[in-house]
C-alpha cells in the first residue's frame, strides 16, 4: 500500500490524484497509518497479556505471602486442626474441611434442583412461561452475596433453629452412622445452613448452563426418540442428558467453583468456629470465611502469612475446578462446531 508508483500519470479525476494535488503526501500518510496500526496492536496485545499476567501474579504473590506459613509448618499445615493465634500454631484442616463439606452439601441440593429447572424450562413449561421463569432464576444470580448473608443470618438461621434442626434431631439423629451428622444444639448456624444458602446461590449458574446446553440438542434426535414412543422423561434422561454430558459436568463444576470460593454468605451463617465436628448442625469455618473474619485482625506476621497461605490453597483449588469446568464445556462447544 505504501509503495504508490511514482510514475503514475496524474489524473485529476481520481480521488487519489485529487488528494495529491491538494498536497497530501500519500507515502507519509501510509507510513503513519502503519505506525498507528502497530501502536494499537501493541496496546491491545498488552491488555491481553495483562489478563494472563494478573492470574499468574495473583498465584505467585499469594505463594510468596504464604511462604512463612508453608515454610514453618510444611505439609502439616494441610492436615493440622490447630488454629492458635496466641501460640502461633496454624493448620488449615478445619477451614479446608468446612469448605469441602459446605460445598458438597450445596452440590447435593443444587445439582438435582438445577436439572429439574432446566428440564422444566426446556421440555415441560409452555413457551410463554419459559422466558419469564428463566429470567427470574437468573435474578437469583444477580443478588449480591451480602444480601444472601443478611437474609441467612436474620431470617433463615432462626427458621432453621426453630423448625428444621429440632426435626432433624428427632428424626435423623437416631439413625446409626448417619445420626452423628444430624445431632446438635438448635443453633441454626452451621455447615448445613451454609450449605443450603450456597445451594441457593449456585442453582442459577448450574441451571443456566444446563438449560443452554439442553437447547443445543438437535430436535431431530429428540423427535426420533418420541417417534419410537419415548416419554418426555425418557427423552430427557436417555437422549438429552447423554448428548450433553460433558457440558452438564462442566456446569456442575462451574457451580462447585462458585460454592468453594463464596465468602460473605458463608461468613454470616457458618459461625466462625475453629473446631472439627462430625455434626452438620455445629458451627464451623471455611477458608473464605476465615479470611473475611480474621485477616484484618491478624496481629503477627506468621498469622497473616497463614491466612494468605489459606488464600493460596483456595485459589489453587478453585482454579483446578474451574479449569475442569471450562474444558468440559469447551469439549461440548467443539462438538457443536461453534
Amino acid at each position, binding site marked *: 500500500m505504501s509503495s504508490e508508483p511514482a510514475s503514475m500519470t496524474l489524473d485529476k479525476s481520481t480521488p487519489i490524484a485529487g488528494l495529491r494535488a491538494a498536497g497530501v503526501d500519500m507515502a507519509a500518510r501510509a507510513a503513519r497509518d502503519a505506525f498507528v496500526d502497530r501502536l494499537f496492536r501493541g496496546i491491545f496485545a498488552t491488555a491481553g497479556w495483562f489478563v494472563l499476567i494478573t492470574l499468574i501474579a*495473583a498465584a505467585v504473590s499469594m505463594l510468596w505471602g504464604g511462604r512463612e506459613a508453608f515454610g514453618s509448618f510444611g505439609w502439616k499445615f494441610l492436615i493440622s486442626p490447630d488454629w492458635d493465634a496466641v501460640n502461633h500454631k496454624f493448620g488449615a484442616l478445619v477451614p479446608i474441611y468446612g469448605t469441602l463439606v459446605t460445598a458438597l452439601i450445596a452440590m447435593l441440593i443444587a445439582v438435582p434442583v438445577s436439572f429439574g429447572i432446566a428440564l422444566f424450562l426446556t421440555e415441560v413449561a409452555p413457551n410463554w412461561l419459559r422466558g419469564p421463569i428463566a429470567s427470574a432464576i437468573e435474578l437469583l444470580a444477580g443478588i449480591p452475596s451480602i444480601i444472601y448473608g443478611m437474609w441467612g443470618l436474620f431470617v433463615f438461621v432462626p427458621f432453621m433453629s426453630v423448625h428444621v434442626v429440632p426435626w432433624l434431631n428427632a428424626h435423623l439423629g437416631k439413625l446409626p452412622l448417619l445420626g452423628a451428622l444430624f445431632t446438635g444444639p438448635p443453633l441454626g448456624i452451621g455447615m448445613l445452613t451454609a450449605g443450603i444458602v450456597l445451594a441457593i446461590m449456585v442453582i442459577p449458574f448450574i441451571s443456566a448452563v444446563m438449560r443452554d446446553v439442553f437447547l443445543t440438542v438437535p430436535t431431530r434426535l429428540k423427535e426420533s426418540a418420541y417417534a419410537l414412543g419415548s416419554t418426555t422423561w425418557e427423552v430427557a434422561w436417555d437422549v438429552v442428558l447423554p448428548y450433553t454430558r460433558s457440558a452438564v459436568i462442566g456446569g456442575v463444576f462451574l457451580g462447585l467453583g462458585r460454592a468453594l*470460593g463464596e465468602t460473605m454468605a458463608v461468613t454470616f451463617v457458618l459461625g466462625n468456629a475453629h473446631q472439627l465436628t462430625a455434626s452438620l448442625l455445629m458451627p464451623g469455618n471455611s477458608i473464605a470465611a476465615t479470611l473475611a473474619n480474621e485477616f484484618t485482625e491478624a496481629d503477627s506476621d506468621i498469622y497473616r502469612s497463614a491466612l494468605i497461605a489459606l488464600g493460596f490453597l*483456595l485459589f489453587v483449588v478453585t482454579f483446578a475446578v474451574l479449569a475442569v469446568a471450562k474444558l468440559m464445556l469447551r469439549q461440548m462447544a467443539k462438538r457443536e462446531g461453534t
Partner: protein
Amino acid sequence: MSAVADASERLYRLRRVKNGIALALAVVATVFGLFWLVWILWTALSNGLSAINGALFTQMTPAPGESGGLLNAFFGSLVMSAMAIAIGAPIGVAAGTYLAEYARKNALGETIRFVNDILLSAPSIVLGLFVYTIVVGPLGHFSGFAGALALALIVIPVVVRTTDEMLQLVPSAMREAALSLGIPQWKMTLQVLYRAALSGIVTGVLLALARISGETAPLLFTALNNQYWSADLSQPLASVPVVIFQYAMSPYDSWHALAWAGAFIVTLFVLLLSLTSRTVLLRKRVAND
C-alpha cells in the same frame, strides 16, 4: 396372548407414571428455586423499605446507639466503583479487542480467553488478598485506591468477555468493506467495529458495575472501612457493602436497620442494572443469530 398384552399394558402404565413423577419433580424444582428468590427479595424489601428515610443520604455512619445515615458509605462506594470502571473498562475493552480482532483463533488468544473465564468466576476474596499483598502490604496502609484496584480486577474479565463476544458478532463484511476502502485497521476498529458493537460493550460495562456494586469480600482488606467522612483515596474508605457487613454482624438494632436500608438500595440498584443489561445483551445476541 392376553398375558403379553397385560404385561405390555403394565409396562406402559409404569413408564407413564415414572414420566409423570419426573415432570412433577421438575415443576417442584422450579418452584423451589423461585421460592427462595421471592423469600429473599421480600425480606430485603420489607426490612429495607421501613428503614429508609432522609437521614440515610445526608448523615454519616453513626456510633452504636446513635442515629445516622450512610452518606460516607454511599460516597465511598460511588468513588471506588467509578475508579474501578475507569481503570478496568479501557483495559477490558482493549484486551477484548485483542482477542476478537488479533487473536481470534490462535493459541495465545485461546489461552487468554481460558484464563479470563477462570478469573470471571474466581473467588473475589482471593483478588482482594492479591491486591493486599501487592499494594496494601508494601505501602503499609489500607486505602481507597487499593479498593478501587481490587474492584477493577473484577471489572476486567466481565468487560473482556462481552467485548470479545460482541466484536465477534460484527459481520466480517463490515471489516472487509472498511478495509477495501483503504482504511487502516486501527481506524476501522475505532470507527466501524466499536460503533457497531457499542451498545453491547456499554452493556458489558454496566454488567461489571452491577457485579462490583454489591462486592464486599475484595474490599475487606483493601479499602477497609471508615466511620467518618473521607474523600482522601489514600486513606481507608467506607463502602456500602462493608458497612452492611459490619452493622449486620453487630448486636445493635439501630445498626441492623441501617444495614437493611443499605441492603435494600444495593439490591434494587444491582437488580435493575443487571436486568436491563441482560435484556440488551440477549436482544443483541438474538438479533445477530
